[in-house]
């Protein structure tokens, strides 16, 4: 893999940048692979990379309907954190955060991972109790979460001038999550793709999978694509939002419902907020990108949807919430808004498992799956390579629903 550094940049500058290698090849599609991964989004690419890197499985094809790094990795709000509630979740996200922190070095691609810390702005006492429970449970797994005073909240977020004692919902305090950070989502996709490619993994764009193929004994046998059939004994479905569309072609049903989550950015402005602000009581969160845009998110739309659409009322609720705490943003302008799909399970926790179609693996039900990309990829790769679940993901088995054994993380925070 071509090394990226100031030096290589300088060297190439002298030759007019004509000699840079392609970030990834575009080889012809083979008839057969050891593993086929459907979806060149964050989880698909990370799974491919770790299969090659950690388990030496390089005969892997990642098949992508559209463009590499499209899907939700291209549409999220890049918040990386581990302030979860349940014993099953926290260690998984702690692992993911630490992997993110090492990614720039390991992939030789600048993720611009910025440990900004997240500040939860809290308005009510039950919430504070819930966050304290979170804090003390997280401490067991070395994830840091500290209660802070209202004054401290305002010190950390000088632009936060609303939420005073006389306001509709006065701020009563906050929590600081130092492990949280933001980074560059495209870099994550491209970095994994480039590194996986260097290890021999093939990326095939504009190669939509139309159905799954099963052998007579019911095992997975490969996939049918717009470019013809591709054989594989192991297939991983990593297509957030469209999981059921794919799995139903193998007459496999999953407890998933596809929803729409939208986000928007403001016009670019000089630095005004240095931390990730999260306010689940009012229902919004944001951080400022290096380019200067405020990247803002809110609640998802409840209705089922495969249309990346903006629900005006959901959007207005988010804007109203933000202006309540940041009234000076009234004259700031909306620059761009967009939506993304996610498929959600009955308990809002993911499913990462081999299905009851032998050889068919799914990683789905991600609501805020961006922060989970490295750990999700690593643990899926482990499961695919060793045929046994990684301890960090065991709890997210698809059988848990057989016993209605939920992992309820709903209401974790608005920042998904």
């Amino acid at each position: 893999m071509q090394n990226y550094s100031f030096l290589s940049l300088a060297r190439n500058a002298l030759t007019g940048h004509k000699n840079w290698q392609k970030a990834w090849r575009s080889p012809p599609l083979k008839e057969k692979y050891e593993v086929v991964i459907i979806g060149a989004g964050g989880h698909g690419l990370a799974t491919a990379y770790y299969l090659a890197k950690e388990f030496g499985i390089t005969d892997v094809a990642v098949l992508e309907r559209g463009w590499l790094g499209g899907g939700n990795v291209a549409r999220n709000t890049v918040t990386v954190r581990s302030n979860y509630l349940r014993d099953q979740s926290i260690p998984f996200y702690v692992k993911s955060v630490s992997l993110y922190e090492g990614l720039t070095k390991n992939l030789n691609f600048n993720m611009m991972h910025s440990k900004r810390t997240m500040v939860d702005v809290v308005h009510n006492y039950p919430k504070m109790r819930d966050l304290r429970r979170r804090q003390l449970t997280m401490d067991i797994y070395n994830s840091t979460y500290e209660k802070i005073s209202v004054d401290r909240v305002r010190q950390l977020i000088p632009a936060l001038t609303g939420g005073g004692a006389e306001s509709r919902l006065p701020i009563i305090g906050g929590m600081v999550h130092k492990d949280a950070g933001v980074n560059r989502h495209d870099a994550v996709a491209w970095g994994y793709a480039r590194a996986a490619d260097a290890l021999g993994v093939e990326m095939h764009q504009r190669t939509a999978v139309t159905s799954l193929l099963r052998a007579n004994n019911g095992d997975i046998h490969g996939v049918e694509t717009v470019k013809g059939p591709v054989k594989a004994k192991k297939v991983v479905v990593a297509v957030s939002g469209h999981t059921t569309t794919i799995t139903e072609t193998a007459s496999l049903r999953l407890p998933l419902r596809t929803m729409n989550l939208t986000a928007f950015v403001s016009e670019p402005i000089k630095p005004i907020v240095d931390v990730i602000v999260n306010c689940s009581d009012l229902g919004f969160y944001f951080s400022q990108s290096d380019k200067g845009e405020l990247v803002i998110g809110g609640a998802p739309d409840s209705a089922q949807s495969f249309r990346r659409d903006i629900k005006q009322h959901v959007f207005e609720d988010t804007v109203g919430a933000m202006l309540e705490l940041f009234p000076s943003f009234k004259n700031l302008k909306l620059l761009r808004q967009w939506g993304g799909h996610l498929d959600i399970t009955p308990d809002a926790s993911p499913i990462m498992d081999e299905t009851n179609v032998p050889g068919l693996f799914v990683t789905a039900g991600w609501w805020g799956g961006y922060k989970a990309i490295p750990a999700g990829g690593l643990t899926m790769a482990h499961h695919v390579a060793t045929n046994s679940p990684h301890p960090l993901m065991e709890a997210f088995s698809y059988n848990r629903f057989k016993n209605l054994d939920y992992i309820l993380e709903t209401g974790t925070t608005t920042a998904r």
Partner: protein
Amino acid sequence: MLLIHCPFCKNRNETEFVYGGPVGANRPDPNLVSDEEWVDYLTMVPNPMGPVYERWWHARGCDQWFIICRDTVTHEILENPSEEP
């Protein structure tokens, strides 16, 4: 923001309604089904790219629950419940 046709109140803004999820299987007699069938009823819902029957409650209107058929890709409402007298 959908414009939903309530069988009693006619066209109303989505904000007047509460979404009740896609229409799955009817609630079976819990004493006549296997565990698998019961869990299936509780957890499995249709999730098509295209038309789906779904429940809406006119919470800020006439209070009734009804079923419409909506395309999950275009959001077009393809079928409305028959109107009340």
